């Protein structure tokens, strides 16, 4: 028989002996834990109760309109606006970020001016501005400078609500993406540029194969946030009369006066889309997060090298 080092189990019903090194360690629940749960449940319960019992929510109306054609059309347009504006915004943002890093002071100054301007004014104001740009430049000639080749363009006809929406959202997004991408460039150490230089690599090759891939861990997660922000931001273009999701909901409640239910319809769709987007986003974030770089490397080790 082994020695019971605690020497405590000598009662009438001897318990099986447990060596100290095998004993579980127990942290007792504290009163605070139960209080937190109680508060959280009370809040959620209250919210559920009021949403179910308050008739003003008009849930039957919500579900009635949830998949109406005009709402679904609006949904599609919202997605199109998001994808197009985001795509163009990223491209322009990359150009601006590269310009911003230029050693040529005028080039980087231009990029800085752009970012200051488009980040410093509200996107809603920018959208209305682009829609009314014809007041500033009624006619523009597109052509080759110093030649007779040119086509006059009627700006008023060109700047439909949809073009104004895409132009406004893109130009605004580009300013933010430029800053994000610039941050990505800043996260790449000087030694990487020097290593590429010492191999005789030049500007574009160095950027494309060495620097840009390394900006991804810093750029991708932030871009994911921007996509979600853009998705919701498209609701602003409803003021231009573009029939996206919010505008579609508005045009229904303008007729029926069922304001709240239709705003709920729109909100639910926004919520669903952002939740769907956050799934790939969190996956990408895990893949690119700095602390797990080693695992990320293992994950791609099976793939052909990026080179």
């Amino acid at each position, binding site marked *: 028989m082994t020695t019971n080092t605690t020497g405590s189990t000598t009662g009438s019903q001897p318990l099986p002996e447990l060596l100290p090194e095998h004993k579980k360690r127990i942290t007792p629940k504290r009163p605070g834990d139960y209080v937190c749960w109680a508060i959280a449940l009370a809040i959620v319960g209250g919210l559920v109760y009021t949403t179910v019992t308050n008739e003003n929510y008009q849930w039957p109306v919500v579900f009635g309109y949830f998949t109406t054609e005009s709402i679904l059309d609006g949904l599609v347009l919202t997605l199109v606006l998001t994808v197009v504006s985001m795509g163009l915004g990223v491209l322009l943002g990359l150009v601006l970020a590269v310009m911003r890093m230029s050693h040529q002071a005028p080039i980087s100054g231009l990029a800085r001016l752009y970012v200051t301007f488009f980040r410093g004014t509200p996107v809603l104001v920018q959208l209305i501005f682009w829609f009314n740009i014809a007041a500033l430049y009624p006619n523009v000639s597109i052509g080759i400078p110093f030649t007779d080749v040119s086509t006059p363009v009627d700006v008023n006809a060109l700047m439909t609500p949809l073009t104004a929406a895409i132009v406004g959202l893109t130009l605004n997004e580009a300013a933010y993406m430029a800053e994000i991408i610039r941050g990505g460039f800043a996260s790449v150490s000087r030694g990487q540029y020097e290593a590429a230089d*010492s191999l005789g690599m030049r500007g574009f090759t160095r950027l494309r194969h060495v620097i840009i891939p390394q900006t991804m861990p810093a750029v991708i997660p932030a871009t994911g946030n921007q996509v979600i922000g853009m998705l919701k931001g498209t609701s602003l273009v409803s003021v231009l009369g573009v029939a996206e999701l919010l505008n579609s909901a508005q045009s229904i409640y303008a007729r029926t006066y069922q304001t709240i239910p239709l705003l709920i319809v729109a909100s639910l769709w926004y919520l669903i889309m952002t939740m769907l987007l956050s799934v790939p986003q969190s996956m990408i974030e895990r893949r690119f997060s700095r602390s797990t770089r080693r695992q990320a490397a*293992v994950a791609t*080790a099976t793939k052909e090298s990026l*080179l």
Partner: protein
Amino acid sequence: MKADGTIVARQLYKSFGHHEVLRGIDLSVSAGEISCIIGPSGSGKSTLLRCVNGLETVDRGVLRVNGEDFGYVESERAYHAVRPQRLAEQRARIGMVFQQFNLFPNMTAEGNVMSGPVLVKKIDRKVARERARELLAQVGLDGCGHKYPAQLSGGQQQRVAIARALAMDPSIMLFDEPTSALDPELVGEVLAVMRDLAHNGMTMLVVTHEMGFARDVADEVLFMDGGVAVERGDAREVLANPRERRTQEFLERVL
């Protein structure tokens, strides 16, 4: 070319702002020679090395690498900076190994070694891959080609970095304190690769604190302090019987 693998510097001057880092340095490395630069930190030895492949520009003086003016063309009155394309060509013939390895973390070991030949010399990927495998084997990393830098030890990373520089078939190899960022037990494997290179006749200019390596491998040692070459001569001679006070003091401290 006869002048391949040679470095000649005369009266090199370099300032960062008001701080003069190089104050009239002379340097001469002939083909196949191993030259070590030693000296206290801040003496300008890394700057000198970095000037040789254009990571720093020279303010004044003569710098001829592989028998031609480096980064500049001489005219009657001045040196004129060459175009970036020409500078890149000159750089491609000089291998550089950094203290912090500076491997590309987005590429595998093999990808790193292939990067120069494929992206700069536009060599066929298959050929480049074959050569990369040979080079990795040469630095003792057979079978590590698929690994990413983050999966390799410091010593292994530095050997990949050496292979990457060798892949460009340089006529000169520059080493900027190649073992200073390594754990002590990993220093040996990197030095062994460098010894190998030296025996195969590569021209090498090495900034180092490894006095043992300098004594065993180097032909010439340059002791720098305060941006000037204090003492220069046969490696074993300088390390064993330094003539200058400052060299003596430095060697007493590090040995």
